[in-house]
C-alpha cells in the first residue's frame, strides 16, 4: 500500500503567466478547431499524449441532476479492472467538483518505490464541473507535472467543455466500443 495520497495537492488556478507557452496556443487551437465530439476527444487525447506525456487517459461525466460520475471515455486504461472513481477518492472528488485540479504528486511509498503521478482536471462550464479528465501513468521520460502543465490543466478546464459537450454541456455518453481502448494498468485504483 502506498501513501501517495499524502502528496496530493488541490491546485487553484490563478496567475496565468504562460501566454507565450506555445503548447497553450496549439492546444487552444486544436480544441477550437475540433469538428464534433469524437474529434474533440481525439484532440484531448493528442494534447495529453503530446504535451503532458501520458497515454492513459479517462473522462468521467458528471450527471448534473444527481452529481453521479460515470466513465464517458477512456484510452489506455482497462476500466473494467481499474476504478477511476476509487483512484480519484472522496477528497479528490470534492476538490474537482469544486473546480480545483487534484494532482497526486510524485512520492515514495513505504517500500521506497515511486508512487504514480496522476492528475484529475475539472472540465468546467458555467461555473460547474461537467466532466473530469483523469490523467494516469506518465511516460517514463516524464517524471512529474510542472508549472506549465498546470497552465495547460487550466486551459483544458476552461475551454474543453464546449468542444466536448456542446453549448449546453449535456450530450449523452458515448457507448461506441471504438471510443474505449483497453490496456492494462495497475494500482492504486485496481478493482479487487
Amino acid at each position, binding site marked *: 500500500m502506498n501513501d501517495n495520497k499524502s502528496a496530493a495537492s488541490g491546485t487553484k488556478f490563478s496567475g496565468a503567466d504562460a501566454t507565450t507557452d*506555445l*503548447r497553450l*496556443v*496549439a*492546444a487552444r*487551437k*486544436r480544441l477550437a*478547431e475540433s469538428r464534433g465530439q469524437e474529434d474533440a476527444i481525439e*484532440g484531448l487525447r*493528442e*494534447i495529453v*499524449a*503530446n*504535451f*503532458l*506525456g501520458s*497515454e492513459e487517459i479517462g473522462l468521467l461525466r458528471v450527471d448534473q441532476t444527481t452529481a453521479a460520475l460515470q466513465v464517458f471515455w477512456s484510452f489506455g486504461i482497462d476500466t473494467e479492472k481499474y476504478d477511476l472513481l476509487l483512484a480519484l477518492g472522496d477528497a479528490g472528488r470534492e476538490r474537482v467538483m469544486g473546480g480545483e485540479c487534484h494532482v497526486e504528486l510524485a512520492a515514495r511509498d513505504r517500500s521506497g518505490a515511486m508512487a504514480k503521478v496522476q492528475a484529475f482536471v475539472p472540465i468546467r462550464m458555467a461555473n460547474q464541473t461537467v466532466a473530469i479528465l483523469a490523467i494516469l501513468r506518465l*511516460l*517514463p*521520460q*516524464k517524471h512529474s507535472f510542472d508549472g506549465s502543465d498546470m497552465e495547460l490543466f487550466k486551459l483544458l478546464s476552461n475551454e474543453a467543455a464546449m468542444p466536448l459537450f456542446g453549448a449546453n454541456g449535456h450530450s449523452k455518453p458515448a457507448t461506441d466500443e471504438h471510443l474505449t481502448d483497453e490496456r492494462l494498468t495497475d494500482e492504486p485504483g485496481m478493482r479487487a
Partner: protein
Amino acid sequence: MAKKILVVDDSKTALMMEREILEKRTNYQCVTAADGQEAVEKAQQEHPDLVLMDVVMPRMNGFEACKMMRQQASTREIPIVLVTTRSEESYMEAGFQSGCNDYITKPVDGAELVALLQSYLGE
C-alpha cells in the same frame, strides 16, 4: 534562403505545436505531412533540409519512411530526426537502424528541439 523542414505527424496537435515552435522561434520554413508515405513523397518533391518525423503513424510508420528515404538517392543525405513517446533503448536502436540521425522523445521541449535543429542546420 530559409532552410526547410519537413514535419511529419498524424496528430494535428503535434503538427500545430511543432509548426508554432518553428514559426515563432526560428527562421526555418515548415512543410508538413500526415504519415510516412506522404513524407516520402513530400521529401522527394520539396527537398527539405531536415525531416522531423513521428514514429507511430497510419499507412507507413516513421521507421519504414526513414528506410525508404535512405534507399532513394534524392533523399539519402537528408538528416532525419524521429519524434516519439517511446524512450526504451531497444526502440531507439530500431530508429537508428532505420537510418535516422537523431531521436527526441515526447513531450517535446521547445528549446531542446530548436537547439537540436540548429545543431544540424545552423541558425
